[in-house]
């Protein structure tokens, strides 16, 4: 009896702490989104209240969509993220297949060489990367950003994918070889579909830092036509710092797409993190 009661008490305490921390984690986001829909007066008078018909006001969103090129920024971010993702997954899977499937001289060294980038941040090479982009005329192009993010995403992608590819049945691949499939066909039609869950994990890990990065857009592509949404929001808020409606609205607009993507992929992300850690 006593143990049952103490375990019920412990469960209640666990819920209490977890709810408290959930509130701490979500409260700032809640405050921003709620106030983005209110009039300026209501933002200051009742910052914690939900918008009511009297305080409802979309002036912030009108300012943001009218003044900034948010649709263009959004499109730039989308292009950069999707293209980086595509090449990280394609090149990463190809390299991971070579490393996990074939025995050749230098295999281990190549694996270690590619893994270096997991620990050493690409940012430290920024000075020379900028010089390289200037020399090749790629400054202020989305191509420059895509190249950098592909290089940044590859090490982890190769590492995770080669771990998974080691688990693909050798019999299946050998059966394909006996049937006369080329090595390329084996990779694309037999192996790739089987490592799809791992690809999704890598995709999430690549997508979040790429979408959120501020450093490289700021240095490599700060022009109006190539601003990403992260940089665009930063610049916009810097200019409209006293226009609270606009600031709150632009923050809400920046939060939304990431939040939607996260809620779609969260199961995948959590499974990816836990699978990677359990190994």
């Amino acid at each position: 009896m006593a143990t049952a009661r103490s375990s019920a008490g412990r469960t209640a305490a666990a819920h209490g702490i977890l709810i408290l921390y959930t509130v701490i984690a979500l409260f700032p986001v809640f405050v921003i989104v709620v106030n983005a829909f209110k009039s300026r007066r209501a933002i200051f008078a009742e910052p914690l209240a939900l918008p009511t018909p009297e305080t409802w006001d979309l002036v912030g969103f009108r300012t943001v969509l009218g003044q900034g090129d948010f649709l263009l920024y959004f499109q730039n971010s989308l292009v950069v993220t999707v293209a980086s993702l595509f090449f990280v997954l394609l090149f990463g899977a190809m390299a991971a297949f070579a490393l996990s499937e074939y025995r050749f001289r230098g295999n281990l060294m190549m694996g270690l060489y590619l893994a270096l980038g997991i620990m050493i941040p690409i940012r430290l090479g920024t000075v020379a990367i900028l010089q390289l982009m200037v020399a090749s005329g790629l400054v202020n192009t989305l191509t420059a950003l895509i190249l950098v993010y592909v290089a940044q995403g590859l090490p982890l992608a190769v590492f995770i994918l080669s771990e998974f590819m080691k688990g693909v049945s050798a019999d299946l691949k050998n059966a394909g070889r006996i049937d006369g499939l080329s090595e390329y066909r084996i990779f694309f039609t037999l192996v790739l579909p089987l490592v799809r869950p791992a690809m999704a994990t890598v995709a999430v890990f690549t997508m979040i830092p790429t979408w959120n990065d501020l450093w490289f857009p700021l240095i490599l592509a700060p022009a109006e036509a190539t601003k990403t949404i992260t940089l665009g929001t930063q610049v916009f808020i810097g200019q409209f710092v006293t226009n609270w409606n606009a600031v709150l609205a632009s923050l809400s607009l920046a939060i939304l797409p990431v939040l939607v993507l996260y809620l779609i992929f969260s199961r995948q992300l959590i499974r990816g993190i836990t699978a990677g850690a359990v190994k």
Partner: protein
Amino acid sequence: MTERRPFRWHIVVFLAPAVLVYTAIMIIPLFQTLNLALFNRIEDATRFVGLENFRTLFGDPRWSASFWNALANNAWFFLIHMLVQNPVGVMLAALLSSPRLRGAAFYRTAIFIPTILSFVIVGFVWKLILSPIWGIAPGMLASVGLKSLFAPWLGQEATALTTLALISVWQFVGIPMMLIYAALLAIPDEVIEAAEMDGITGWSQFWKIKLPLILPAIGIISILTFVGNFNAFDLIYVAQGALAGPNFATDILGTFLYRTFFGFQLQLGDPHMGAAIATAMFLIILAGVSVYLFVIQTRLRRYSF
């Protein structure tokens, strides 16, 4: 008679794109940056100056004061993460992994949300909340009768860096939580049952049985935190600008590198000194990673089940 195997071109084809992009955009620029640190512009010509830039960085009082300030701030930033982020992460993970807890998936998803937001959002959100003008933070403190405790934390030299470090902890606590949670789930039931047979339950079970088993995960989190912190830039830049105010109280190596290399306001950009700072950061991160790989990781006992 040994027949030579034909050269397997497909291996080259599979490896080439990844290796080329990675080498051209990451490895070569990294070494070029290290190399650039050994040159400087003297009378309109780029000359090899050896370690002169480093002598300036550590010897010239104007440079060395900024450098040591940034390094000390960075160390404090890291320390706060280790002391707050990781214990909170372990605690949350331990609670989440308690058996038969309802709604664990919901808590997990919600607590991880700040981690996916960009620094721009996080920096401005907290700036607004802590702003003395808007009054959310003072208002909330007033409602519990603690209004006198409020101060413009981000604007004061004494508290700005700690406040930013705590904001960063708020953002990233989901990562240690998730990794430790995974490590806790990986402990086999038999081990826990054996402990219960021996009468080890609750707190002492956590300290004596589970904690030693998740130490490798804590080690990985520590090195990830170290690399992330000594490479941080965005949050400080968004919240305090490139000048890392007030009066450089929040300047860390990332913002110092940005200002030096890119120039800011009245200061002209200097790629060679920037490269010297990047080299110093590289060596610091390399040292941390080596300590982890060769000292910590080899001593951590791993248990395989």
